[in-house]
């Protein structure tokens, strides 16, 4: 069943005011999302420096790449032996190139896939408004910061008051 959004959202012009609202919401234990035209450390700190599992994905797939690089070259060299003078059949220095290249290849591609997939998963977990008004609001990729709060209708007045105290440009309730 598709989850529906219940809550409100507001747009801000100033980053310091947006950061203050986020800090207040975080301290209050509210479930919120932030929208921004670019990453800014002020917002990251205000959100409490959230972490991403991306490094683990890179580590696991990079490690697999190293293993696969050495394994493929060693196995195929033993499977079809190509003797070249007195050189070793399984040559670790030569095969290190494949270990390295496949580490970068699998690590890099998995990181990119991770960025896209984790973004989509978070989009599902942290639901955003589904209204036409929100979807047609295009300034979060341009010059405005947004704060989305998932809350009950009873909490809306308090959140709106907080946003207005930090000069929110517009507040929209969606219940």
């Amino acid at each position: 069943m598709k989850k529906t959004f219940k809550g409100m959202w507001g747009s801000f012009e100033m980053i310091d005011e947006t950061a203050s609202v986020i800090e207040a919401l975080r301290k209050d234990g509210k479930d919120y999302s932030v929208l921004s035209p670019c990453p800014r450390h002020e917002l990251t700190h205000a959100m409490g420096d959230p972490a991403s599992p991306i490094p683990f994905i890179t580590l696991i797939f990079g490690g697999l790449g190293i293993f696969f690089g050495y394994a493929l070259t060693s196995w195929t060299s033993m499977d079809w032996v190509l003797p070249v003078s007195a050189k070793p059949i399984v040559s670790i220095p030569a095969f290190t190139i494949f270990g390295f290249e496949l580490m970068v290849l699998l690590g890099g591609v998995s990181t990119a896939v991770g960025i896209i997939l984790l973004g989509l998963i978070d989009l599902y977990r942290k639901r955003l408004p589904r209204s036409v008004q929100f979807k047609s609001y295009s300034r979060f990729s341009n010059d405005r910061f947004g704060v989305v709060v998932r809350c009950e209708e009873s909490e809306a007045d308090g959140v709106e008051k907080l946003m207005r105290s930090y000069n929110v440009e517009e507040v929209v309730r969606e219940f």
Partner: protein
Amino acid sequence: MTTITYADVNEDILRTLERPKPAYFLLVAGFATALLIGALSVAIQVDVGMGVSGISHPIGWGVYITNFVFWIGIGHAGTLISAVFFLTRAPWRPSVYRAAEGMTVFAVMTAGLFPLIHVGRIWYAFWLIPYPNQRMLWVNFKSPLLWDVFAVSTYLTISITFFVIGLIPDLAALRDRATGIRKLIYTQLAVGWNNSYQQWIHYTRGYLLLAALATPLVFSVHSIVSWDFAMSLIPGWHTTIFAPYFVAGAIFSGLAMVLTIVIPMRAVFGWEKYITEHVMQSMAKVILFTSIIVGYAYASEFFIAWYSGNVFERGLFYFRLFGEPASHAPFGDVGDMTFPQIAFFIMVFCNVIAPIPLWRYKIRTNVWALFFIAILINIGMWFERFNIVVSSLQRDFNPANWGTYYPTIVESGITLGSFGFFFTLFALFARAMPSLAIAEVKEGLAPPRRNPESDDAHGHD
């Protein structure tokens, strides 16, 4: 930069994607014509056979491998700017990185064509890939040529990945501005990007890791390309200096190509406030630095050839500089300039002498002087690769095995076509995608604040 607002960035960059002037179509038509000449030349070679090229015993590697090394080298500056300068936090990077990264992708795509063209029977090129087959034959993983297959294909994949990931937020900005069919296309390409901070957190972390992976990759790829030569025993190739020499040369030529592309774009799109004098000057300084490394490598090669006492090395480097000695009269016209000699002098003039004016501040900040020097460097670096590839094969250990080489019209057509291929792709890219990174340029600006002092309250990274 402080007077530019976030909205200005979107406006200035996305404006370049509006309907272009007729001059643009003329330019693309010119590039496409060059591409067509190249395609026709390849078709002739496929139809008639490798005999139409000048490649023959003993010069088995000619213009195709020269072009391969040249284009791989061009690609390096893009990754250097997008990954290495990202890790070192070079403040001038965001304004040129998108164009440089696009240049990398198209240059490596161009380079990737040449091993295929060079093998002659393009339809058997898949034999280079280790795949399970009926006879359980496997490729030789100890061959530098196979190292190349893995290095170049990894480099192309990672460059495209890096390029595409960097584009996603900007595609979302495009989507939010576009209408009709364009909106539909950009919506699909933006893969659900909505500027939420969860996405930014994964993006910034992942981008850092991609940069960390791409940094050693960029140094490894041209090192591996250099080992195609250095692992052999041929005089002039069998030298340990090749890896750093090739990497420095790649950065040198790549940055010159970035300038060649970026300077006209800056003038046409009016991007002077983004690609500032400081940006141009910073690139000029890196070019000057790598020019010194390349000049040192040239001198070192000659010194070691003499100092080693190896007669074959000495003979080859004498041949590169002075042509045919009188004692070798039967093997060439003594007194006439040989082709490797011409290539050598062009290479030294363009790569060592032409960048010397960059020591002067006035030259580094004069965009058209920079443009002219960059063009010279592009020419010089092509001839450097030609000199390395061809002259060594012309004079190996055994005089009975010596020969001469001149590119044929088909090889020249394919070389012209490679420039057509590269510039056509770049021109189409500049028309369809933002050539400046919107989100990264914004990251470098001061964000709008009610209280200008407030940044300190939240601390800095």
